[in-house]
């Protein structure tokens, strides 16, 4: 089949050549059923989070819809108005299922936004370090080294203690602790790629430098970067939840999953487990789905494991 395709007329041949790495990648990825399960869960969670305002049984932050008489009901209870609270209610009579859907929305937004921003920053700095070298390289990598020698949570904690609470501030903190991973990954990949013959060939062709960096070197640095980015989304979500749990992340007006869990902590010892437990399950499933995908990506994209 492939031989026939390769011999196809030019326009067909181009289509085959452009598609086949993706097909091969998809086929290799699909070899792990766990990874496919993770991917399916991830798509489902993202869809649910995006659609939260339309599918949630109630708007958990519209005080008019809450009834204090319904507070701290166990899962499956019926409200005074006859609705069923499948996952129970919190101390303000809020339906936990709705709160979780909205919390998931905030958690995913923070995780993805901070990862994209950190990726962009790290990519730019890492490429610059690799391409220009010299004192710029030394300075950027020195900062990255020092920063990476401290745990992310410590740096984020101090930053948030100084900055205060808020979605924007927690994203700043997460970007600050994450950019160095990308910068390092890109730099080391770019340094290897720069020595390769295709780059030499491009230079001989007198292509503009920007074109060599962005069209030749950058795409070849992407595989390790994709793996790092996937893992880091999970990290970012977990870190945000942890910081919010400690009371240093998001304000109470924008409750992510971490804040919902923190809110239920005080009722845990009296046996009212559901206020903390179910948001925790949602958080766990989200992070696990991302990690399952990341794990398989790492195996597929790692040339060292190819025999």
């Amino acid at each position, binding site marked *: 089949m492939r031989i026939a395709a390769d011999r196809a007329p030019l326009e067909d041949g181009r289509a085959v050549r452009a598609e086949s790495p993706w097909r091969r990648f998809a086929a290799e990825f699909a070899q792990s059923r*766990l990874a496919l399960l993770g991917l399916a869960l991830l798509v489902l969670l993202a869809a649910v989070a995006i659609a939260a305002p339309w599918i949630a049984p109630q708007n958990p932050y519209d005080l008019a819809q809450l009834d204090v008489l319904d507070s701290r009901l166990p899962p499956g209870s019926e409200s005074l108005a006859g609705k069923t609270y499948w996952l129970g209610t919190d101390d303000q009579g809020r339906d936990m299922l709705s709160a979780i859907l909205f919390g998931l929305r905030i958690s995913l937004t923070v995780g993805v936004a901070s990862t994209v921003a950190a990726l962009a920053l790290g990519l730019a700095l890492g490429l610059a370090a690799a391409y220009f070298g010299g004192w710029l390289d030394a300075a950027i990598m020195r900062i990255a080294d*020092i920063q990476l*020698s*401290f*745990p992310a*949570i*410590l740096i984020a*904690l*101090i*930053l948030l*203690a*100084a*900055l205060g609470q808020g979605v924007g501030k927690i994203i700043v903190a997460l970007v600050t602790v994450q950019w160095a991973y990308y910068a390092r990954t890109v730099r080391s990949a770019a340094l290897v790629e720069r020595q390769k013959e295709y780059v030499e060939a491009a230079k001989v062709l007198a292509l503009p430098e920007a074109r060599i960096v962005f069209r030749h070197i950058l795409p070849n640095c992407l595989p390790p970067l994709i793996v790092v980015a996937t893992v880091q989304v*999970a990290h970012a979500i*977990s870190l945000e*939840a*942890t910081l919010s*749990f*400690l*009371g*240093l992340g998001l304000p109470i007006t924008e409750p992510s999953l*971490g804040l919902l*869990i923190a809110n239920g*902590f005080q009722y*845990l*010892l009296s*046996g009212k*487990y559901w206020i*903390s*437990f179910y948001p*925790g399950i949602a*958080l*766990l499933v989200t*992070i*696990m789905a*991302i*990690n*399952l995908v990341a*794990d398989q990506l790492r195996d597929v994209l790692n040339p*060292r*494991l190819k*025999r």
Partner: protein
Amino acid sequence: MAAYALRRLGQSLLVLALMSFLVFVGVYAIGNPIELLVNPEADDAERARAAQALGLDKPLLVQYGVFLLHAAKGDLGRSFVYNIPAIQLILQRLPATLELALTATVIAILIGIPLGLVAGLKPDSWIGRSIMAGSIVGFSLPTFWVGLVLIMVFSVQLGWLPPNGRGATVSLLGVPVSFLTLDGLRHLAMPALNLALLKLSLLIRLTRAGTRETVLQDYVKFARAKGLPMRRVVGVHVLKNIMIPIVTVIGLELGSVIAFAIVTESIFAWPGTGKLLIDSINQLDRPVIVAYLLVIVAIFIVINFVVDVLYSLLDPRVRIGSAAPAH
């Protein structure tokens, strides 16, 4: 070796100085402690007097200079809240944190390395797959949530273990420790397990990845071809080679375990430095925050140095000092 150690010491002092400045400036930006410390009904004159007594009326750089002068004498300021030297407060709490972190690390090593070896040797068997699936779960579980579930199961439902505190301590060489009393052990079990879980998964994955790459090497094939028993091949040829990155990571992660103890200590009300930090942030107790961070940075620098030395001892290919040309 001595030259290397001296150069490292110089670098470390530089990092420490840099961090102290960043931390000082950063912490300076956290609210105004006068608002919390002085009676809200106090008039302006009284506030000014309090600010003057605490040295908060001077410009930032002067405050930093005063801080550095005192720090050089081992005085990191007095806690606004407890009114005792901040460094004393931290040293009082440090044994609890170190005990928790070390216990967690030991648990992670004892369980993680054997499981990782099995998963690496038999990556496609059901046992290898189960271990990996388990490690992904462990990796994904946020520390604080595991803590809550542990409390839910073992304290609330079963009532086996106490949910907070450190329990009875005995003095070991003048340092209070929990692990020598039954009550202390009961208090230590859940927080230590909680803190171990994250590193446990990391160790399993690291050991497995190392094993998988090592068994493909020619020297392992050769050892097998020579007819050496599997136990010897794994125990000597494989383990010795994968121990290098593992020891490095265990060492480097010790710092991160101490940092993550902040979370575990907050959940289990373990009276260590992490809980002290969170309380101090909430109470704007600046001297304690700064002192905590400097102590942590110092601990990190020591850990990194020890790991580097261990690394060179374990791997004869890396000889510290030989990289620097002789003058």
